[in-house]
């Protein structure tokens, strides 16, 4: 691990913090429905959308009404996307004449994008028409992220209200999040990325004459290079900002047209964590105590920083397959060194490792290097970050509402230790909330383990494995961890486009999304109804280092106890057998 790698990490963290603080304040104003500049510009559009939808944004919903609206909205989004993928062959904007997407793949893909997972069992440039990319996948990139944002805002209202029966209007939260947050940020990022070289064009391909024709065998020569282009930048921007992760190209942001320069990769990897980090600041604003937000952000950084450092260190070394006689694996100013299989030279080790950690800490799942080829430890850390439940930054909205489930468990455990009724933000945490928080924490973990067991226990599951030995097991474990926690990244070797995996992972994504979302909304409803308890001598302050340590401990303990046995069979076994 070089000094420059450390410097790159520091630059990344400093820029992230510098962006998250002002954005967090702005997000709070949007969530409250305050007046701000963009509301004056886009206000007429917002009101027009409400009229067309036939909803009154001021009419509040109970938690169950809010949850039903979110579920119906996701279901409608699923049906429309599925139909589009099944009919893309006869629809316009299909310059490369691609056929309809197969039923099981269309189902898996539609679930994947509606649940903000963006697991991709297909190669983008060879499967999806421009219409599907823009009108189908791109739209759900916005709407699934906005749904997560809305649910989080509702949950925060639950904490900040007293004796209230409602937690806001889903439609208003959804529309505001899309119009005032995701769209403007995406527009700016997309243009910056085009400047760096990401295409944005209606054309399908560019044909080039190779400088040196490539001889395949005695009779075949390749003389041209067909370069897939399209409306890449617009989709790329929201895929990063909305913690979606579904790339335009098969290799996602490792593709030089999807991620052309080190500056582009810096912007894209910042965009992964920007909104999830900012939402902690927003939380502090909305509950009326900024320190509460800082504490949650501190929890995220305390887990993230050691893990990202370990990933950089792991990838700076090379396994025996690369470190052979005649190969130089040491880093220097003129050579990246390290585990370069599956990585791009322009990013080197540090930017690849930072991205891999950020994309799995957040539920983004885009990649700029092939995780399957990472060192065993370098692959273990992204996998474990997903298994922690996508609460270290996590998805837009969903990350913080998932973290709040752990927060409730932490205050409950702390309360048990000293024999007091636990409270959070002045609200008593009682049996109902604990049940709901437990479901939210345990449902994805259970699905990871059960789906993993099913996949390695069946012929259909084992058929998709590419690498042999413990690494093959890692491929499966990574896939189920990614799906059940709505991440979407993959150990790309796994052949996941089979009816078996499309169905299994589709089900995992649904449970991972909605079995967290609905219990958290139930908590929102229960909390909103409660009266606030005055702060007493025995109240545990939830903004200090002690509290941060308790929450970190809870997350790490649950994650370690649940997954260490499985991890031991995969990456840990591989690391031990490596030398």
């Amino acid at each position, binding site marked *: 691990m070089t000094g420059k790698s450390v410097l790159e990490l520091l630059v990344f963290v400093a820029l992230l913090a510098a962006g998250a603080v002002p954005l967090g304040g702005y997000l709070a104003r949007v969530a409250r429905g305050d007046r701000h500049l963009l509301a004056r510009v886009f206000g007429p559009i917002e009101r027009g959308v409400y009229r067309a939808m036939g909803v009154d944004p001021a009419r509040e919903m109970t938690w169950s009404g809010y949850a039903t609206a979110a579920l119906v*909205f996701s279901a409608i989004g699923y049906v429309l996307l599925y139909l589009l993928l099944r009919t893309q062959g006869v629809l316009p904007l299909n310059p490369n004449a691609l056929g309809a997407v197969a039923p099981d793949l269309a189902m898996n893909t539609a679930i994947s994008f509606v649940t903000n997972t963006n697991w991709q069992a297909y190669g983008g440039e060879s499967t999806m028409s421009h219409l599907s990319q823009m009108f189908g996948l791109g739209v759900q990139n916005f709407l699934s992220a906005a749904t997560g944002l809305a649910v989080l805002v509702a949950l925060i209202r639950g904490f900040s209200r007293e004796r209230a029966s409602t937690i806001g209007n889903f439609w208003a939260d959804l529309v505001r999040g899309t119009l005032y947050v995701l769209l403007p940020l995406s527009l700016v990022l997309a243009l910056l990325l085009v400047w760096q070289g990401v295409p944005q064009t209606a054309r399908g391909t560019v044909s080039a004459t190779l400088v040196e024709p*490539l001889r395949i065998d005695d009779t075949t020569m390749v003389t041209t290079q067909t370069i897939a282009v399209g409306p890449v930048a617009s989709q790329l921007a929201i895929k990063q900002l909305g913690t979606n992760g579904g790339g335009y190209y098969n290799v996602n942001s490792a593709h030089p047209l999807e991620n052309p320069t080190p500056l582009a990769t810096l912007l894209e990897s910042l965009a992964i964590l920007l909104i999830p980090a900012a939402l902690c600041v927003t939380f502090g604003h909305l509950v009326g105590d900024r320190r509460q937000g800082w504490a949650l952000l501190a929890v995220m950084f305390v887990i993230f920083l050691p893990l990202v450092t370990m990933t950089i260190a792991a990838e700076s070394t090379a396994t025996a397959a690369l470190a052979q006689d005649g*190969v130089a694996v040491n880093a220097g100013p003129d050579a990246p060194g390290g585990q370069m299989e599956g990585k791009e030279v322009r990013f080197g080790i540090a930017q690849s490792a930072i991205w891999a950690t950020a994309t799995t800490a957040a539920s983004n799942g885009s990649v700029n290097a092939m995780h399957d080829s990472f060192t065993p430890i370098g692959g273990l850390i992204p996998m474990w970050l997903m298994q922690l439940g996508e609460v270290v930054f996590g998805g837009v909205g969903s990350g913080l509402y998932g973290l709040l489930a752990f927060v409730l468990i932490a205050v409950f455990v702390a309360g048990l230790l000293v024999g007091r009724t636990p409270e959070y933000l002045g609200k008593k945490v009682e049996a109902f909330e604990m049940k709901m928080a437990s479901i939210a924490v345990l449902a994805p973990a259970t699905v990871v383990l059960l789906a993993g067991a099913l996949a390695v226990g069946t012929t259909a599951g084992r058929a998709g494995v590419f690498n042999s030995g413990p690494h093959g097991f890692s491929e499966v474990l990574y896939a189920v961890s990614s799906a059940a926690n709505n991440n979407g990244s993959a150990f790309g070797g796994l052949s996941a486009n089979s009816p078996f995996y499309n169905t299994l992972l589709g089900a995992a994504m649904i449970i991972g999304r909605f079995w967290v979302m609905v219990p958290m909304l139930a908590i929102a409803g229960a909390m909103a109804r409660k009266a606030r308890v005055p702060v007493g001598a025995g109240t545990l302050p939830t903004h200090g280092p002690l509290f941060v340590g308790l929450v970190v401990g809870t997350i790490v303990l649950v994650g370690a106890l649940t997954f260490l046995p499985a991890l031991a069979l995969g990456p840990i076994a591989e690391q031990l057998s490596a030398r």
Partner: protein
Amino acid sequence: MRALLRPALVCCLVFSVVTGIVYPAVVGGVASLLFPRQASGSAIRGTDGRIAGSRLVGQPFTSGRYLWGRPSATTPAYNAAASSGSNLGPTSAVLDSLVRARVATLRASYTAVGLSAPGDPIPVDLVTASGSGLDPDISPASARWQVARIAAARGVSRERVQAIIDQHTERPWLGVVGDARVHVLAVNLALDAERP
């Protein structure tokens, strides 16, 4: 339930238009005004005026006269219509033998022009497949490893080859972000322009 269907449907449709059509069109429109070259794929043209490639997408080179890029896991190599990494695991025996073969091929490229291969070990990026299979760059050390071969195959001085490589070397952004890299296609076009 009926009361929810209308807002759900209308919302999906309205935002399909706003985020699915208006947004990409606005990005495309502004991009074509401000950054027309990048927006259409950063094409570069050869001396004959034909599109010789994209500035950002690598091409395969196998002749000793050219600077070689990184191994590519696509089929065929550097297939820009179907990007792919190898996805071989870090302890894969296949990866181990592939790297061994790549070392042998690179060393043999020297014997083919009547030189003995350099004693220096080959930088790791030159014997590993990139994530995309389309990596346009190699490290400056990997370029340096090939200089003597290119010079011999073309009958030009090593200093001249190294000078061309240096011209097409980019340093990390602001000295910190990203890694130093040599643009393979640009170097080869410059080599050809020098002495066709």
